[in-house]
């Protein structure tokens, strides 16, 4: 699309305090992500990938630093503004799908629209259209337990799209899926990108890189270059954690 900066992160820190131990999940991250990009975030376990996505999605607050999304500063928003931001700007896709088990696919997708005051008829129409878009037109009445992992993740993606968000954040969306199913989910995310959305995906799967316009490597809560990342990845575990 265009090269305008959509996400701008400055000196972002997230520190968890566990008793006496301070865990620096993010230790001063800077990045600029253009609108309409497909960013793949890679990094070893514990490097802060999920933390980065949660902060971007307004699901928790940073310890310090600044996050601007579409020019608005998340760190100064109050609870209400943050809820509205999550509702209107972001669609979040989780590794564990997080569907409501008592609701059908259709109800799960329609669910978030209750909070934005959309009428029942309109909710169901939109939910049906989105489920059709993700290839589940025949599974509207299925409950999560009656669907495969891939199908559940498609429902979750359809749900993330109900408010037509400009930003899609997906935290290891293929993590619980087999490789073939995982690949089709990646293709679906890529389609969303091609429709003009800004997409950021955390993954361990290098095949995802083929869809990426941008790549971010995280190591111990910091953004590093590809070279540093590969050097660290090549090292045996013991030496890495010693460094």
């Amino acid at each position, binding site marked *: 699309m265009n090269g305008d900066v959509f996400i701008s992160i400055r000196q972002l820190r997230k520190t968890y305090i566990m008793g006496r131990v301070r865990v620096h999940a993010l230790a001063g991250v800077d990045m600029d992500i253009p609108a309409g990009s497909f960013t793949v975030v890679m990094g070893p376990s514990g490097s802060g990938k999920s933390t980065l996505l*949660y902060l971007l*999605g307004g*699901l*928790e*607050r940073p310890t310090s630093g600044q996050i601007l999304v579409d020019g608005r500063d998340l760190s100064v928003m109050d*609870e*209400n503004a943050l*809820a*509205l931001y*999550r*509702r*209107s700007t972001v669609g*979040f896709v*989780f590794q564990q799908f*997080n569907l*409501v088990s*008592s609701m059908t696919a259709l109800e799960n997708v329609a*669910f*978030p629209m*209750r*909070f*934005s*005051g959309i*009428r*029942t008829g309109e909710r169901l129409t939109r939910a049906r259209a989105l489920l059709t878009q993700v290839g589940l037109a025949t599974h509207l009445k299925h409950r999560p337990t009656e669907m495969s992992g891939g199908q559940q993740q498609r429902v979750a993606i359809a*749900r993330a799209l*109900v*408010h037509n968000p400009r930003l899609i954040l997906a935290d290891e969306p293929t993590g619980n899926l087999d490789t073939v199913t995982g690949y089709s989910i990646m293709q679906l995310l890529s389609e969303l990108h091609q429709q003009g959305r800004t997409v950021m995906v955390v993954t361990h799967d290098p095949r995802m890189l083929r869809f990426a316009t941008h790549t971010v490597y995280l190591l111990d809560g910091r953004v590093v270059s590809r070279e540093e990342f590969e050097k660290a990845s090549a090292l045996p575990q013991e030496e890495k954690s010693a460094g």
Partner: protein
Amino acid sequence: MRFLDYLGLVFYNLGRRKGRVALTAIGVVIGTAAVVVLVALASGLQRNATRQFSQVGNLTLITVYPKYGEVMSQPVGGGGSGGSGQPQTKLLTPQAIAELSAIEGVAQVIPRDSLRGGARLVAGRMETYPFIMAYDTPDLSVFNFQMKEGVAELKRGEALVGEYLAKGFNDPRWRPGQPQPEQPEILGKQLKLVVQKFAQDGTMTERVYSVRIAGIIKQRMDETDYGMIMRMDDLTQMNEWLMGKRINRNKEGYDMLYVKTTDSKKTTEISKQINDLGYQAYSPMEFIQSANNFYTIIQIVFGGIGAIALLVAAIGIANTMTMAILERTREIGLMKAVGATNRDVMSIFLGEAGGIGLIGGVGGVALAWGLAQVINVLAASYLTNPVQFGGQPPGPAAYIEPWLPLFALVFSTLVGILSGLYPALRAATMVPVVALKYE
């Protein structure tokens, strides 16, 4: 969130765990039923009491007694008897009658006098001791006497007697072991009235009058039940013999006045005015009002006892909601992730807690209604004394006033909402990520 969507979601969530909601609601059912039944019992008591007073009936009557030698609390202007601040005696003289008649809203002032000595009413072997009084009015209809037998009219030498008096004759010569004597037929009969006069030295003289019983007055729950009503001229004649002199009403007054008002709504106000004039006035209205206050207190106390059961139920709701919030932590995280505000989450859980309260309230009102029917059937068969005195049968023992079910529903819902307050607040303020990661 649209209100209907909100309600829909609340009841959808309640429907997801019917069993637990039902079990929790049972506590509320019992608590609400206890409140409603106990308050209904208090209402029943009150209504029965009030009914008996208004049966006696006359809410437009004020009884006025004289006041003897007291310092008046506030000086009274006008009214003929001056000397404010002086110890004042307010006798029920013709002048006082004129004063009271002049009060706005007073329809009639009827003097009453009573026999100033003892008297015995004799029917054959049987006798009884009536309280003898007379009203200075040609027309007794003001008192609205319900007649058991005979008519409420008096000619010279006639008397009306109260129902209990008519049934209360006894035989002074009767000894234990002998069969109970039968009550005499007295209606229309000429009976002997023996009036007794005691001189200074203690000697007693008797004089016998003859009275015809013109009527028997039904139970009224006042002094007429054991009384005998005669004409004022007959009574004055007996009193003058008793006192050995002519009675000067300007000096001695009457022993009581009945003030009849034009409107029962004015009764309390007029009664107060009469008190302010220095007399002692009482109206059944005041009595009913103070009785009402008493029964309101009983209702509150009974309701409070029931409310303790509701308190226990409230703990149950709080417990269920706390459990629900733990179980649904991830769902709460999800709701927030897809854009529910803290307020949305808060209202949903408060709504569910209130919903449990409401459901329990509906059940409780239904149960209470059923219980009230049972209580009333039982009370009617066990408590009604065979309507021997000709009074009306008592009203229902448990009476559910129309406002009570509504109040109970609102109250049980409020109890639910209050119990859900803390759990809902916890749910609303969860950090989305923490909730989503909850196992």
